[in-house]
C-alpha cells in the first residue's frame, strides 16, 4: 500500500457513541410513527409544500457533502497526485455512507417506499428526477465496488465468521480473493465512472427546481442552478474531507494530517473561488441584487449563505497563517460546509415559496428526529467502520 491505513481497534462504546445511540433510537421511533400514521402524522408537510427537510437535508445536502468521495478520487487517482491518497479512504467511506443514507432518507420520505424500484422499469427521460435517481443508484453501486478492496484487505486469508456461519469461511475468503484480484485490474473504470456520475447528478440536483420558476425565490432561481450545484459540490469536497478528518483524528487522538490538509485547502481557494465568481456573477447579470436589502427571511438567508458560507472562508484561506494552523483550516472548512448545507436548505426549503397557499413551513419535532437519527446512525457506522477496517492513516499516532 502506498499509505498505511489500519483499523483503529479502540473501544467502540465511548460516551459519544452512546449519545449517537440515543438519537438513533429517537429517530427509529419517529420512523415507526411515519410508517404507522403516515407522512402527515410526523411531518408539517402540506399539499403546497411537499418537500421538507427529509429532501432538503437528508437527500440534497447528503449528496452534496458526500462530494469528497469523487473529488479526492479524481485528485489522487485520475490526476495522479498520490500524495493525497491517505485521505481518499475516509472520503470514500463518507461517500459510501452518505449515499446509503440518502437512499434510506428517500425510503422514509417517499409515500410508497416499497415501490422505490419502479423507476428502473418506468422511464421518463424528461424528468430531471429520473436522471438523478438513475445516477444515484449506479453511483451507490460503484461506491460499494470501490470500497470492497478495503474489506478484502482486512479480511483476506483470515475470514472468521461466528457460529454456524463459519462453514462459509472458505467460500467468503475465496470470493474476497477473486474480487480483489479482478477489481485491481478494472478499478480505473469505476473510479472514472464515479466522477462522471457525480458530475451528472450533482448538477442535476440543481435542475430539479428549474421546473418551478414561480415558486423558487429569484435569488436562487437561475438557469445556471445546475452549474452552481456542480461547482459548489466540487468546492465543498475538500473542505468536507478536512472537516471530517480533523474530527476523526482529534477524536482518536491521531496526528492531525496537516501536511495533507493544508495543501488541500490551497486547492479549495481556486475551487471555491470559481463557485463564488459564478454565484456573484449570476446575481449581477440577472440583477437580483435588488432584493438584497428587502429584509425578508429569504434574502437574509441568502446573505448569510454567501457572506459566511463562501466569501468569509474564501478570504480566510488566502492567508497562509490560516492555512497552516489546524484550527484555522478546520474553522474555514466548517464555514464552507455550513455554507453549502445552507445553500441546499435555501434552494429546497427557505427559498421555496408557493405563491397561492404557502402557510410557512417549519419541520415538526418528529421530522427533525428522523433527520438527526439518520445523521447519528451515519456517524455511528463510520465509527464502527474505522474501528474495524483499514480506513484511517495511523502511522504517526500520538499518545496522549
Amino acid at each position: 500500500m502506498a499509505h498505511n491505513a489500519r483499523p483503529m481497534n479502540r473501544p467502540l462504546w465511548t460516551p459519544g457513541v452512546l449519545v449517537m445511540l440515543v438519537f438513533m433510537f429517537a429517530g427509529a421511533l419517529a420512523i415507526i410513527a411515519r410508517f404507522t400514521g403516515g407522512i402527515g402524522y410526523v411531518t408539517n408537510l402540506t399539499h403546497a409544500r411537499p418537500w421538507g427537510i427529509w429532501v432538503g437535508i437528508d437527500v440534497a445536502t447528503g449528496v452534496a457533502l458526500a462530494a469528497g468521495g469523487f473529488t479526492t478520487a479524481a485528485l489522487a487517482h485520475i490526476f495522479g497526485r498520490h500524495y493525497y491518497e491517505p485521505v481518499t479512504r475516509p472520503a470514500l467511506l463518507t461517500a459510501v455512507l452518505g449515499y446509503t443514507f440518502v437512499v434510506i432518507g428517500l425510503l422514509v420520505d417517499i409515500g410508497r417506499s416499497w415501490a422505490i424500484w419502479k423507476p428502473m422499469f418506468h422511464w421518463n427521460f424528461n424528468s430531471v428526477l429520473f436522471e438523478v435517481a438513475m445516477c444515484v443508484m449506479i453511483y451507490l453501486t460503484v461506491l460499494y465496488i470501490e470500497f470492497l478492496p478495503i474489506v478484502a484487505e482486512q479480511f483476506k486469508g483470515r475470514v472468521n465468521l461466528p457460529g454456524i456461519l463459519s462453514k462459509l469461511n472458505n467460500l467468503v475468503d475465496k470470493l474476497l480473493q477473486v474480487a480483489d484480484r479482478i477489481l485491481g485490474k478494472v478499478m480505473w473504470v469505476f473510479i472514472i465512472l464515479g466522477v462522471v456520475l457525480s458530475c451528472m447528478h450533482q448538477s442535476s440536483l440543481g435542475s430539479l427546481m428549474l421546473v418551478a420558476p414561480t415558486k423558487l425565490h429569484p435569488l436562487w432561481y437561475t438557469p445556471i442552478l445546475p452549474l452552481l450545484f456542480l461547482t459548489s459540490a466540487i468546492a465543498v469536497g475538500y473542505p468536507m474531507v478536512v472537516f471530517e478528518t480533523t474530527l476523526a483524528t482529534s477524536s482518536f487522538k491521531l496526528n492531525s494530517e496537516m501536511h495533507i490538509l493544508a495543501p488541500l485547502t490551497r486547492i479549495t481557494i481556486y475551487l471555491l473561488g470559481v463557485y463564488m465568481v459564478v454565484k456573484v456573477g449570476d446575481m449581477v447579470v440577472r440583477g437580483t441584487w435588488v432584493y438584497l436589502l428587502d429584509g425578508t427571511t429569504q434574502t437574509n438567508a441568502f446573505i448569510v449563505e454567501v457572506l459566511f458560507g463562501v466569501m468569509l472562508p474564501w478570504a480566510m484561506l488566502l492567508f497562509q497563517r490560516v492555512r497552516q494552523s489546524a484550527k484555522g483550516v478546520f474553522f474555514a472548512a466548517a464555514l464552507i460546509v455550513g455554507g453549502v448545507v445552507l445553500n441546499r436548505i435555501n434552494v429546497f426549503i427557505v427559498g421555496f415559496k408557493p405563491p397561492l397557499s404557502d402557510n410557512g413551513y417549519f419541520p415538526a419535532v418528529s421530522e427533525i428526529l428522523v433527520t438527526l437519527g439518520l445523521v447519528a446512525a451515519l456517524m455511528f457506522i463510520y465509527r464502527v467502520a474505522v474501528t474495524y477496517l483499514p480506513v484511517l492513516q495511523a502511522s504517526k499516532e500520538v499518545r496522549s
Partner: protein
Amino acid sequence: MQITRRHFFRFMGAAGASVAVRPPSAHAWQSKAPPDTFGCLVDLTRCVGCRKCEEACATVNGLPEPERADCQCTIFEKNRRPDETAFTVINRYYTGKVDTFDKPVPTYAKVQCMHCQDPACVSACIVGALTKEDTGAVRYDVSKCIGCRYCMVACPFEIPAYEYFDPITPRVMKCTFCQERISKADGLPGCAAICPTEAITFGRRDTLLKVAKKRLKENPGIYLQHIYGEKEVGGTAWMYISSVPFDTVNLPTLPDTPAPKLSETIQHSLFSYLWSPVLLFGVLGAFMARCNQEDHKENNPDKGGV
C-alpha cells in the same frame, strides 16, 4: 491503478463508436401538446357560487360529500384549496367591485386542475405516472407512482394533493377531467354537466377560444380583455374569463413559457445519447492514462488501494 494506454483506448474506441452511430442532436424544444384537445371555459361573471359542481365532482369521482354541501354562505369565509378529498372547490372573493348601490359584489371562482397543454407535473414525474391524454386530460396512474411528490413541487397551480395520512399506499389526488366520461361521445365532466348557469362550457379547446373571444368582443364593458389559460405556461385546457383581475381571485400570474421547457432543454442538450458523460469519461481516462505512464517512467509503480 492498472490502466494501460492500450486498455484505455480499446475501451474508449467502443464507447466512441456507440456515440458516433447516433450523433447528439440538440433539437429545439417543442411542445408535446396533443392536437385538438378538449377543454373547459369558466366564465366567472356567470358563476353564482351554488357549489353544485363540487357535489357532482364528488359523486362522479367517488369522493366524500363536500364540506357542508348545501351551504352557500359561511363556507366562503375561508379560502379553500382542492385537497385529497375534493378535486374542485369554489371560493368567494370581494375584489372591490360594487353594484349600483355601492354594495360590494362577490366573484366566485372555481379551482381545479388546469390540465396544462405542457404540464410541469408530467415532465417532472420520475416514472411517467402522469400523462397528457389525447382528450386533454392529465391522467394519474397510481400503479406507477412511488410517492416522490415532485409533481406537487412542479405544479404552478399548486393542484396535486397527497394522502399524507396513508402510511403505505398514499395517492396523489387531483381532478381527472372525468377522463372516462369525456372519452365517450357527448360525455361531459361532472361539473360542466351540472352547472345551472352555464358558467362552465365544455368543448374543443380551439372552439372554446373562439367562444371566449366572441364574448370578450361583444361585451367589452364587462370582461377584461384576457383569456386566462390561453397562453399561461404555454396554455391550459381549462380557461377563464372574468370581469375582475385574475390575480384577485387567486389565479396566479404566470409566464407564457411552458414550465418544463427550461429543464427539458438543459437535460436533453446535455444528456441526449449520453454524449457529455461519455466525453467526460474519455477526457478523464486520457488524464489517468497519462499520469499513470509518467509514474511508470519514474519507476514508481503505484498499486494504491482506493
